[in-house]
């Protein structure tokens, strides 16, 4: 090892300490088979050259406006220059596990907003479901077309010290991040063409078409050529870039709440030629803001009456309203039993062991060893409110203890998972940094398609286990390798010249008669987005 890998294996710090497994190197410090080609390519690059390519990546993203809004400021989402490689054998398990997860959550949601059989049969307590803040009675009796409620899922996985993938949390409300999967691949194709050429990488560019097919399949019965729109909270939302990218790639309109009007259980867009009917709304607006008739009355981000229209079969909402109950981290602990109950199968990708803090015995045990655990709010997403106790101060842990005792249903606790590490550029050297993985699945009612790739998020600070973008996380391109016998189409190289221009873009709004910033800015920022926080 020389040059960019120099000092790579000096002992890492942080809560995961030296327990974490590195994905590129085995314990003896040799590159694992699927990583060999990349490791040798990287060690042949001069450090300055690697740095230069990383800078080129950053400026490409700025030029193209690949940003997320954070506290009203557009920031580029840092993309690391080293991709993350997953071989065909490991991926096959991930794919089956994620698809299974979607199937079981679909069955669970259909039951929750229907007959509640799992409660009657004693698999899950009724109170666990009804006390979830995302269980919406307004969604009971809405029959989605084709029985699909989870049109898009993002299932967060981590690799433990044995290299096994486990599910950390489910996101079946408004999962975001897939745009970065598409953009990362495009950017890396330009910056590391020789490395990409040396592997057979599964392409990701087909995702928008799969998504569109699933959305069209979700149209109300009897509509033969459905009109699909993407509903965004607006430009100040942290995931606005993604909303516009998906709308563009699917060739459908990107609408805001004020563009929609609901009358007679039908939804219309306001166009220059009058009103046009909409059949499927792929909404990127949270339940709470979606319909002021049923939820927050002060919301200007949604469309008044859309939920009643969905109940009457006049429009389809994707993902369905009320899915958040399946994301609840207490419900998560019941997924192994639910899988046996609904599917008669064992979980392919296991859960992380979790303390149910509302059960006194488990709560006591967890509080005894609180300083070794990670504690999360059950309804949070995007790392909000999560506390890694080993890395927290004594006061923070005590404060957390008080909050858990005040609201045991609101929290779960888990042992610290030593997330695996992947080499990541730090200065002009590569260093191990912890990563997770969010594969995306699309359900069209016939089958669950898992995108062969996914969002690898990386904690850029040394030792940190928090990979969320709002907390200094970045991302990596995820290369899923095609198997030897695979005849799948693999990534083709298409190099596009990029300009360079470096400047952070400040907040700006036009102030004369043209449309500019409105007072809805705060609301657009306020609505949370899974995995963006």
């Amino acid at each position, binding site marked *: 090892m020389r040059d960019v890998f120099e000092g790579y294996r000096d002992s890492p710090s942080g809560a995961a300490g030296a327990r974490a497994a590195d994905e590129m190197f085995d314990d003896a410090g040799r590159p694992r088979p699927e990583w060999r080609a990349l490791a040798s390519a990287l060690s042949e690059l001069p450090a300055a050259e690697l740095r230069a390519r990383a800078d080129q990546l950053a400026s490409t993203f*700025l*030029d*193209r*406006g690949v940003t997320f809004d954070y506290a009203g400021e557009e920031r580029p989402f840092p993309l690391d220059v080293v991709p993350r490689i997953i071989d065909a054998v490991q991926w096959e398990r991930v794919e089956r596990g994620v698809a299974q997860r979607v199937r079981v959550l679909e069955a669970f949601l259909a039951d929750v907003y229907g007959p509640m059989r799992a409660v009657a049969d004693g698999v899950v307590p009724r109170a666990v479901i009804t006390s979830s803040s995302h269980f919406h009675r307004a969604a009971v009796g809405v029959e989605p077309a084709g029985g699909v409620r989870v049109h898009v899922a993002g299932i967060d996985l981590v690799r433990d010290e044995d290299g096994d993938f486990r599910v950390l949390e489910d996101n079946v409300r408004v999962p975001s991040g897939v745009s970065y999967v598409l953009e990362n691949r495009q950017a890396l194709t330009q910056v590391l063409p020789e490395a990409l050429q040396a592997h057979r990488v599964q392409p990701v560019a087909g995702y928008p078409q799969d998504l569109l097919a699933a959305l069209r399949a979700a149209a109300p019965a009897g509509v033969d050529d459905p009109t699909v729109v*993407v509903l965004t909270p*607006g*430009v100040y939302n942290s995931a*606005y870039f993604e909303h*516009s*990218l998906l*709308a*563009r790639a699917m060739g*459908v*309109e*990107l*609408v*805001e*709440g*004020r*563009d929609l009007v609901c009358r007679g259980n039908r939804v219309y*867009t*306001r*166009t*220059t030629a009058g009103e046009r009917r909409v059949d499927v709304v792929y909404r990127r607006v949270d339940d709470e803001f979606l319909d*002021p*008739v049923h939820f927050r*009355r*002060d*919301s*200007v981000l949604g469309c*008044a009456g859309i939920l009643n229209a969905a109940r009457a079969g006049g429009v389809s909402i994707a993902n369905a309203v009320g899915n958040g109950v399946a994301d609840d981290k207490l419900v998560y602990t019941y997924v192994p039993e639910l899988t046996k109950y609904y599917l008669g199968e064992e979980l392919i990708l296991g859960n992380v062991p979790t303390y149910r803090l509302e059960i006194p015995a488990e709560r006591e045990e967890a509080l005894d060893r609180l300083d070794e655990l990670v504690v999360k709010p059950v309804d949070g997403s995007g790392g909000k409110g999560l506390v890694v106790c080993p890395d927290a101060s004594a006061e923070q842990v005590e404060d957390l203890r008080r909050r858990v005792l005040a609201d045991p249903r609101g929290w779960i606790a888990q042992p610290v998972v030593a997330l695996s590490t992947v080499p990541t550029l730090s200065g002009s050297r590569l260093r191990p940094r912890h990563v997770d993985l969010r594969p995306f699945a699309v359900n069209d009612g016939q089958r669950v398609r898992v995108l062969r790739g996914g969002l690898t998020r990386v904690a850029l600070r040394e030792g940190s286990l928090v990979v969320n973008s709002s907390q200094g996380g970045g991302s990596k391109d995820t290369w899923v390798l095609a198997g030897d016998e695979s005849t799948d189409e693999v990534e083709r190289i298409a190099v596009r010249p990029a*300009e360079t*221009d*470096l*400047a*952070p*873009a*400040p907040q*700006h*709004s*036009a*102030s*004369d*008669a*043209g*449309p*500019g*910033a*409105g*007072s*809805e800015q705060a609301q657009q920022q306020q609505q949370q987005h899974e995995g963006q926080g």
Partner: protein
Amino acid sequence: MLSRIAESLFWIGRYVERADATARILDVHVERTLADPWVDESAVSTSLLSVMGSPLEPGRTVGRRELLELLAHDPVSPSSITGALGAARENARRARETVSGDMWESLNTTWNALASGQWRAASPHRFFSWVRERTAVVSGLVDATMSRDDSWHFFVLGRSLERADMTARLVDTRAVSGTGSQWPLLLRSTGAYEAFLRAYHGSSTGAAGEAHAAEFLLLDRLFPRSVVNALEVAEACLDALDPVPRRVGYTEDARRVVGMARTRLEFQSPEDLLADLHEQMRLVTQACSAASEAVGMRFFPVAGAVSWTAGRS
């Protein structure tokens, strides 16, 4: 198409054209005040501001630095170059799924460069040249990558109305000029100088030159930046957007306003136009803003965000 998107495209067209024309006007102004030592700079700057629609409160005067701050670098004023380009970029961001990727990227990189502040320190002439180049890139990409559908018509409509308005303002700056012949300078700033020389075979000097140049900038049917040409293009866009054949007249306010402004110019003798230049130009800019208003009423009637009021249940 969505009213909101149509409105965004209309304004992108307006703002990009505004940035370009403002750069041209300021370029001429700076050159003139530097070249002519007898110019009363603060008086000229003050009247320029009022021609550009940002009059100062009475009694206040500005120097060149402040003028450039107001009309070139102010990041929030929609009548400054930086502000207009920022607003164009913001509108493109709201219409991301409609504008082409190339067009978005050109607006975005332009805005990134402005936001970095690197141009504040540059010489004004270099800055104006750069702005003209960037807006030309945007226009070229729009031309090459945008389908000729409604979104295109809204974009071109905005651009044409702004163009007629700005050419009229540019001609009007002649009235606030210092001494000497201004026409070559005005023609150069609209990029019309060579076209003008070819059209009039260099036969124009002195007073005749003035008349011909005014004629050219206002009335030439073939030159794309002339007021009449821009108004004609705007009319064609309005036709394309609402192609209902009528037996009698027009029901549409925008068509009426634009058509009247164009015919008023076309059917006046050039001498009368020149004699009453300031007032004539005021009428043109007034017509452009009335037309813009009428387009808004007709195509983007949903003003701003909705508000939802519900009683306590």
